């Protein structure tokens, strides 16, 4: 099992549909195994459909505090942010995961926190990438999205999470084939591939073949 080296704050950003929310919830659960006080914040102002709040039962059961707009998952379709988001930068005793909204539009919401996050300087800003998404099929297009996000949120990305997958059709070979894509982005940006995430059902097949493999328990949308 991968040993993640978590900073006090781990931010997950990326193209919409790249898998940020799923990974954020899984990382929060992973963090909770090692640390007592874990927060997860849903700062997504872009997509009102798939939210961290969908995993509230798992998070509650694990004792992880969810910070989300009270409108998340409701019919109130406004880009609201939770007032409790300020505890992310004020409560230095907690480890925090921040699920940022998709693309540059979603990353814009971070601007309110970015100065404090940079001042504390104990964070990791991870870009979630998936080569099977239509607008990020290669290194060039992915780096374009990355630049847009960095520009919007004023925080530099510090690492990559390779979440290349084709949904329920994903094979071990697909994931193996995505390693070169992630490595090329890594070479071009000088950013490390922090981990490669796979559905837990593929973990045994790929364990040992890919460095830093992170198994994901897929989160379901509740309705």
């Amino acid at each position, binding site marked *: 099992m991968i040993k993640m080296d978590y900073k006090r704050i781990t931010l997950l950003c990326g193209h919409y*549909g790249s898998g940020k929310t799923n990974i954020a919830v899984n990382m929060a659960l992973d963090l909770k195994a090692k640390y007592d006080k874990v927060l997860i914040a849903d700062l997504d102002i872009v997509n009102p*459909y798939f939210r961290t709040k969908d995993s509230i039962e798992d998070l509650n059961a694990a004792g992880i505090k969810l910070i989300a707009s009270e409108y998340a998952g409701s*019919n109130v*379709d406004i880009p609201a942010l939770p007032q409790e988001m300020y505890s992310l930068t004020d409560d230095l005793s907690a480890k925090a995961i921040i699920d940022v909204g998709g693309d540059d539009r979603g990353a814009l919401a971070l601007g309110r926190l970015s100065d404090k996050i940079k001042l504390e300087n104990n964070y990791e800003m991870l870009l979630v990438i998936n080569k*099977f998404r*239509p607008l990020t*099929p290669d290194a060039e297009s992915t780096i374009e999205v990355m630049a847009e996000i960095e520009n919007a949120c004023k925080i530099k990305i510090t690492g990559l999470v390779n979440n290349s997958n084709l949904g329920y059709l994903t094979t071990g070979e697909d994931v193996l084939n995505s390693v070169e894509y992630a490595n090329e982005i890594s070479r071009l940006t000088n950013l490390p591939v922090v981990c490669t995430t796979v559905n837990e059902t593929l973990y045994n097949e790929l364990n040992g073949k890919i460095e830093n493999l992170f198994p994901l328990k897929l989160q379901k949308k509740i309705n």
Partner: protein
Amino acid sequence: MVLKMADKVLMKGNEAIAEAAILAGCRHYFGYPITPQTEIAAYMAKRMPKIGGCFLQAESEIAAINMVYGVAATGKRVMTSSSSPGISLKGEGISYLAGADLPSLIVNVQRGGPGLGGIQPSQSDYFQATKGAAHGDFHMLVLAPASVQEMADLTVKGFELADKYRMTAMVLADGTMGQMMEPVSLDYDVKNTVEKPWATTGTNMEREHNIVNSLFLSPEKLEEENFKRYDRYKLIEENETMYEEYMMDDAEICVSAFGIASRVAKNAINEARAMGIKVGLIRPITLWPFPKAPFKKAGEQVKSIISVELSMGQMIEDIRLASECKVPVTLCNRAGGMIPTPEQVLEAIVNANNGGAK
């Protein structure tokens, strides 16, 4: 960016519609954002400038549909998309498109209503799409996808049929279809060869002016146009009806559902089959023209029909008509943005099998 279309990609339904439209030759998109279809506009905003196309966020849905009218009059493939309340706003323009016999593609990613309603998935615009989009005698071709792959396939098909019959095709999806992600392959041999001698492309001083209009000064002429349009509709009913049958061969109970509801229904049917209940599915793919033939046959074959809908029961009326009321047709539904579970549908199947259908 080069998208190799034969390769599988992981797409949201909304993105699949947008990319398929581009592949079908659509270079004009006009829209106004509304959940749960905004990714269509967002995708078009990113892609159109890169391929010499036009993405324009109009000041309203009404403006957008009239821009569609303008481009359609020139014979170019054009589309707009919205969700339920936005489609209501487009109604006037949809009627004008019909009156002027203009081809266009309109996407409705439905959400719960009526009124502003909610943002969660719904199928409660069935009546609107198939019977009452706006004033006047007219129909739209209505295509109902049940997977992300079909979101793309039926978009391409919609453009082709719209051109062929000079009318509006609507892709009637719902919030689930728009938002869910599935692997798709976008590999099309797109037909874009329909001659459009009526298009307003400039006379080059070599022919009479083409005039695209839905106003007719003589009632006799207007009546004639209506009759001509309905002759065309008859052809469409004969040639373009699409549906899927699943395990209907020996079925004693028939479940009917379209779009996302059909996927829930299939799960329930598989469970019921495992329990030994002979049940099958008819899934209309074209909602207009409605596939009457399989329901007429079902009316003579099964004990009862269950209509599974994300509405208060709209398609059920067409099922009753098509099956000529020969067997009871019951409703299994959720509304207001909620989705029936396979368990709920299974319970309805078990009840029907026990003769519980009223």
